[in-house]
C-alpha cells in the first residue's frame, strides 16, 4: 500500500515540476501579452495602464472587464502599416518556402539514393551549418550581396554584368537569407520520408512499363508528401515571424511583422501595440501550428 502511494506521489511530482515551469514561463506570459494588448498606452515605466488591479477586489475586476480597451486592435486595422506588414511577411515567407522546397527536394532525394554508408555523413553535413550561429550565417550574406560584395565581383569578373546589382537591402536579399538559413529544416524531414521509401515499388512500376519520370510523380512524390508538409510548416512558421534576416538583409522599406513588432517595442516603446501585434501574429499562425502539432502527435503514436 505504502509503495503504491509513493509511486503515485512520485508520478504527481514528475508531472508537476515541468507542468509548473511551463505554466509559469509559457502560459502565464502569454496571458499577460493578451492582457496588455487590451490596455491603454501611457508614457511611464512600464508604459501601459494596468487593466486589472487585483488589489481592488472582485467588483473592480468585473467592472474592468466591462471597459476593456480594444482600441489597439482597431488601431491595427486603421494604420495600413500593420496590414501591409502581415501581408508582406506572408508573401515573403510563402515564396521562400516554395523556393526552399524546390531547392531542398533534389538534395534530399540525392541523399536518400546515396550509398547507405555515406548517408550519415551527408546528414551531418546538412545539420552542421544549423549548429553554427544563425547570426553569423546571415552576416555572411551581407558580405556576399553588398554592392562591392563577392557576388558582384564574381559576376563582374566573368563579364556577366556591367553594373553592380543592388541586391542587399531588398526583399530579394531577405528571401535569399531565409532560403539559406532554413534549408536544413526542409531537407531533413524530406530525407527522412524519402529514405524510408520501398524502392521495389519503383521496380514494379518499371516492370509494368512506367517511364521513370512518371514513376517519380506518381509514386515517389505522393509517398514523400508527409515530409513535404512537415518541411514546409517548419520553414514557413518561423519565417513569418523572422526578425534578424529582414533587419540585416532587408531595406528600410522591407516590411515584416517581426520587425514591426520589434520597432514598436524598442523604438516606439508602445508596449500595448507590440502586444496586440503579437496576439494577431499568433492567431494568424494558429492554423499552421495546429496542423504541425497534430502531425507531431500522429508521428509519435506511429513510432510507438
Amino acid at each position, binding site marked *: 500500500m505504502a509503495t503504491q502511494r509513493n509511486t503515485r506521489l512520485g508520478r504527481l511530482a514528475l*508531472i508537476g515540476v515541468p507542468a509548473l515551469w511551463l505554466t509559469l514561463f*509559457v502560459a502565464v*506570459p*502569454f496571458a*499577460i501579452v493578451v492582457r496588455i494588448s487590451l490596455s491603454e498606452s501611457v508614457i511611464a515605466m512600464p508604459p501601459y495602464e494596468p487593466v486589472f488591479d487585483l488589489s481592488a477586489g472582485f467588483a473592480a475586476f468585473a467592472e474592468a472587464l466591462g471597459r476593456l480597451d480594444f482600441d489597439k486592435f482597431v488601431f491595427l486595422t486603421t494604420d495600413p502599416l500593420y496590414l501591409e506588414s502581415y501581408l508582406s511577411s506572408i508573401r515573403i515567407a510563402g515564396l521562400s518556402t516554395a523556393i526552399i522546397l524546390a531547392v531542398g527536394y533534389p538534395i534530399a532525394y540525392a541523399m536518400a539514393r546515396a550509398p547507405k554508408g555515406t548517408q550519415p555523413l551527408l546528414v*551531418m553535413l546538412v545539420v552542421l551549418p544549423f549548429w553554427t550561429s544563425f547570426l553569423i550565417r546571415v552576416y555572411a550574406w551581407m558580405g556576399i550581396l553588398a554592392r562591392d*560584395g563577392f557576388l558582384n565581383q564574381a559576376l563582374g569578373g566573368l563579364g556577366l554584368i556591367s553594373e553592380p546589382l543592388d541586391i542587399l537591402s531588398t526583399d530579394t536579399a531577405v528571401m535569399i537569407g531565409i532560403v539559406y538559413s532554413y534549408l536544413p529544416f526542409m531537407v531533413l524531414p524530406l530525407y527522412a520520408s524519402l529514405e524510408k521509401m520501398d524502392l521495389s515499388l519503383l521496380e514494379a512500376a518499371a516492370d509494368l512499363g512506367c517511364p521513370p519520370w512518371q514513376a517519380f510523380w506518381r509514386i515517389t512524390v505522393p509517398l514523400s508528401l508527409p515530409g513535404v508538409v512537415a518541411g514546409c510548416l517548419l520553414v514557413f512558421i518561423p519565417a513569418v515571424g523572422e526578425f*534578424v534576416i529582414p533587419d540585416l538583409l532587408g531595406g528600410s522599406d522591407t516590411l515584416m511583422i517581426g520587425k514591426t*513588432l520589434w520597432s514598436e517595442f524598442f523604438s516606439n516603446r508602445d508596449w500595448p501595440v507590440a*502586444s496586440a501585434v503579437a496576439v494577431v501574429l499568433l492567431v494568424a499562425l494558429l492554423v499552421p501550428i495546429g496542423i504541425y502539432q497534430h502531425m507531431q502527435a500522429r508521428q509519435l503514436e506511429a513510432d510507438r
Partner: protein
Amino acid sequence: MRRFGAFHIAVLAAGFAFLYVPILLVVIYSFNASRLVTVWAGFSTKWYAALLANTQLLDAARVSLMVAAVSATIATVLGTLVAIVLVRFGRFRGRLVFSSLVYAPLVMPEVITGLSLLLLYVAVAFDRGFWTVTLAHVTFTLSFVAIVVQSRLISFDRSLEEAAQDLGCPPAETFFRITLPIILPALIAGWLLAFTLSLDDLVIASFTSGPGATTLPIQIYSAVRLGVSPEINAASTILIGLVTLAVIAFSLSTKRSEVERQRAERGAAT
C-alpha cells in the same frame, strides 16, 4: 532502383556548396590584411589580436557561456522529465494541454516568446539581468531536449527495467542504474543542442537581458548593424571552429561507444 549517378553527385555538390561557401568566405576573409572585407590584401592575423583587446566582446562571450551552461543544464533536467511524462505516463488528465505547452516554444516566433517573457518579468518586478535571460533560455530550449530524449525513450527496451524491478530493485534506483545510463547519449545530445541554441539566441536575449548581462549575439549584432568588419569575421571564425570541433568530437565519441557496445554484445553472444 535508379542508381546513384552523376546527376545525384552534381545536386549534392551544388547543395553543399550553397551551404558552405558563405561560411568559408567569412572564415577566409577573417585572415585578410585589409580593412576592406571584400578585397584580399594578403594574409594577416591582426584581427584576432584586435579581438583579444576588445574587452566588451570578451565580457559578452563570458556572459554567454555562463548563460548557456546553466540554462542547458536546467533544461536537460526538465526536458528529460517532460520526455518521461510524455512517453511513459500514457493518458492523464491535461495531457493535451501539457504537450501543447511543450511544443509551443518550438513553433512560436521568437519575438513573441521574448516579448511575453519580458512582460512577465516586468509584471512581477523581476530585475532584468543574468537570471532573466537564463530562465528564458531554459524555457525555449527544454522543448528541444524533450524531443531528443523522447525519441531515445521510445526505442528503449523496457524489459531491462522490468527485469530489475522483478529482482526487487526500487523504481528510483532502477531509473538511476538502468534507465539513465542507457538514455545518457540522448541527454548529452540534448544538452549540447540546448547549449548551442542558447549561445546562438539573439531575439529572446534582447528582450530579456538587462544591463550587465549583454550576451555575445547582442554584442555582435550591434556591431553587425554598422556593416561588415574583419573583426566580426575573426570572432565568427572562432565560434565556427569551436562548434565544428564540438560536433565532430561528439559524433566520434558516440560512434566509438556504439562500436564498443556492439563488440560487447557480440562478445556476450559467443
